[in-house]
């Protein structure tokens, strides 16, 4: 337990603590200047807009796939999670070439697309946990409208938890606003400000001072999450729970399906399709010039050609073959150039996930079973800090703590990346496993204690096996987030050798087929553990209690 606290302290809290102590009064002066305040307002607007959109899309999506007879609910639901699992940068980089949308609207839409699954996931879970008899009582009183009116207040806390998380993700995101700025007019947000204060001036004090309002904003969004969690926002189950049947939508089935399909098409299928198209050299292969050349019609210089449908059909077999060949070479190149980056991402993420499972089990259990309520709450609040702080800040803090001569070897090693990921994502493991512990009857452990099992034995022989589903979910959650981590990894040299960093550099410096292929490989690697679990375990992951 003490070892777990020490590891979490070193990985997640020490970098932040060091940053806080480096603030000088001069650094604080800058917080209130006009530029900073306008950035704060812009970031707040971004966060609120993303949260509102995520709520408006996520709540009905969650209800439809979890509780109604919408066609294809069984596959719409897992596919709906893909945008959350993919790096948000992927959504931005695949949509940007397809639309003229730039600046704030683009950043809002891309981030809402990436975060709506948070609301959908939590709402779906809450909708599933409404007792069938309560729902039937409402149905007898006034049909589907009465059911919805009765259920919404019960589900709203869970949906708001998802919305708060979407807000926290959006205000801390660096990659999407940075990418949007690189393809259109500059769209500065607070995370940029923190990054540039560090990069341009190497002033940790200025960086943390400029991050303070962002931390306050994130805590403002995350504290209600804890409060709602305590109130049982995630679960309305009781001991005599009866699973509700799916509600019949009648004539609304088709429109409901079209809504759900549009959402996953826009946020998952189109981005992945676009990447596959790019990886196969689609934009180059199907250019008007290439078609004309294939058909032997070379237009006079300065003239453009209009391609007919007939011409497209004529060149289809040759171009399809060419695309297939391009696709294979793009993947071959991606594997050749980035094999070690992909391996680093996989190994470091798996190691961080494993470590977080142990940390989460010990600290999550401590939060729930602490003899002193205040101690439990304090531990919970501290565990929230790394998530509430911008990842960029954790990255800078890690540099400040570890970039010294005595620790130089470790600072350059893969262990540094693993520690960085642990610091960044242990919060998820702690929150998931404290929630899971809360749903476990204390009598199980009391029975173990009475039969003579010590704390360690009870933890690993009684608690851990009972929370197996949640532990697997924790592993996958931390693995996925570590694989897609960009903001903190951008700063720490050891963590630069990952696949997502390769993609980030690729989209900024000469995007080509290879970058698209590498991105697809990365997305596949991110989704792999979840896919394997779904296929072989045939059991749902217990991320929520």
């Amino acid at each position, binding site marked *: 337990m003490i070892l777990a606290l020490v590891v979490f302290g070193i990985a997640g809290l020490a970098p932040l603590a060091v940053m806080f102590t480096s603030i000088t009064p001069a650094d604080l002066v800058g917080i209130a200047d006009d530029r900073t305040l306008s950035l704060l307002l812009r970031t707040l607007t971004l966060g609120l807009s993303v949260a509102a959109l995520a709520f408006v899309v996520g709540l009905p999506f969650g209800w439809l796939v979890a509780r109604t007879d919408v066609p294809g609910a069984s596959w719409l639901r897992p596919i709906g999670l893909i945008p959350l699992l993919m790096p948000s940068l992927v959504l931005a980089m695949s949509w940007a070439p397809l639309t003229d949308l730039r600046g704030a609207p683009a950043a809002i839409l891309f981030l809402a697309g990436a975060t709506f699954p948070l609301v959908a996931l939590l709402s779906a879970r809450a909708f599933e946990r409404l007792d069938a008899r309560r729902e039937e*009582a409402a149905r007898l*009183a006034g049909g589907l409208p*009465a059911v919805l009116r009765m259920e919404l*207040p019960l589900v709203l806390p869970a949906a708001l938890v998802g919305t708060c998380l979407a807000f926290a993700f959006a205000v801390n995101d660096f990659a999407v606003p940075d990418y949007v700025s690189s393809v259109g007019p500059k769209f500065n947000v607070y995370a940029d400000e923190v990054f540039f204060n560090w990069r341009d001036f190497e002033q940790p004090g200025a960086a943390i001072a400029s991050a303070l309002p962002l931390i306050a904003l994130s805590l403002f969004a995350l504290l209600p999450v804890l409060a709602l969690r305590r109130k049982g926002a995630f679960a309305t189950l009781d001991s005599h729970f009866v699973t509700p049947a799916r509600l019949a939508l009648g004539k609304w089935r088709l429109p409901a399906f079209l809504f759900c399909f549009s959402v996953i098409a826009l946020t998952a299928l189109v981005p992945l399709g676009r990447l596959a198209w790019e990886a196969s050299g689609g934009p180059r292969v199907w250019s008007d010039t290439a078609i004309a050349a294939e058909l032997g019609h070379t237009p006079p210089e300065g003239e453009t050609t209009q391609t007919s449908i007939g011409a497209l059909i004529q060149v289809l077999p040759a171009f399809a073959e060419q695309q297939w060949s391009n696709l294979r070479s793009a993947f071959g190149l991606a594997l050749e150039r980035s094999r070690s980056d992909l391996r680093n991402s996989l190994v470091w993420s798996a190691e961080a996930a494993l470590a977080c499972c142990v940390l989460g089990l010990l600290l999550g259990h401590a939060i729930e079973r602490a003899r002193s309520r205040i101690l439990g709450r304090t531990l919970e609040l501290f565990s929230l800090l790394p998530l509430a702080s911008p990842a960029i800040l954790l990255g800078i803090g890690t540099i400040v703590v570890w970039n010294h001569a005595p620790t130089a070897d470790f600072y350059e090693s893969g262990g540094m990346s693993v520690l960085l990921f642990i610091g960044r994502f242990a919060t998820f493991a702690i929150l998931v496993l404290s929630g899971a512990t809360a749903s476990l009857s204390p009598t199980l452990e009391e029975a173990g204690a009475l039969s003579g099992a010590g704390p360690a034995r009870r933890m690993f022989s009684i608690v851990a096996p009972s929370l197996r589903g949640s532990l697997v979910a924790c592993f996958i959650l931390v693995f996925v987030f570590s694989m897609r981590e960009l903001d903190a990894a951008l700063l720490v040299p050891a963590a630069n050798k990952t696949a997502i960093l390769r993609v980030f550099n690729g989209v900024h410096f000469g995007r080509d087929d290879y970058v698209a292929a590498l991105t697809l490989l990365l997305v596949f690697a991110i989704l792999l553990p979840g896919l394997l679990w779904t296929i072989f375990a045939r059991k749902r992951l217990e991320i929520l209690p």
Partner: protein
Amino acid sequence: MTGCLIEIHDLEVSIDGKLILGPLDLEVKATEYVCLLGHSGSGKSTLLRTIAGLQKATSGSIKLGSEVVSESGRERVAPEQRGIGMLFQEGALWPHMSVEKTLLFTLGASGVPKAERAGRVTELLSAVHLPGFEKRKPATLSGGECQRVALARALAPKPRLLLLDEPLGPLDTAMREELCQSLSELHEQLGFTALHVTHDPSEAERLGARSLRIENGRLLEPNA
């Protein structure tokens, strides 16, 4: 048969291809109180849910009054339009609503004009012997009180048929006696038709009801 509120013919209910109920015929007169006795899994609750329209029938017909509500596997009338109140096991009260809000919500959903609702809440609470419980939430009520609130909720839209799914199951003996008494009184006062599912034959005796026994989805004493 005239004066029948429920007429069921050749009713069959299959779930996942397995026949759970039927073939079954049943007739219940208007204002009659009928108890359905049977062991767990005999199909009692499925019959109630099928009459209410919460479970789809596979074949056969259900007629409520002069209206065929279900025929040959087609649900002709939606559950909320059948004029049915249902008392669920353990009440199934909405945890986030006070007693008053629960009743106001039900009255509103069933189309009672707003001006009449407050008066009806008082009437209903007095009928189930719970005056003064308006602001209480389900978590603060005893098992018996929960069932009384659930009974008030089921009676709120003035249903022609009340379905009771083992309503006394979770209660202790004293509370059972009290609720049985209340049910008898209310049945006499309001004159609704009731179909009451239980596995306890003494409940039927206390309620002075006609008893029918159901086993493996079939009625053993049809229209006795």
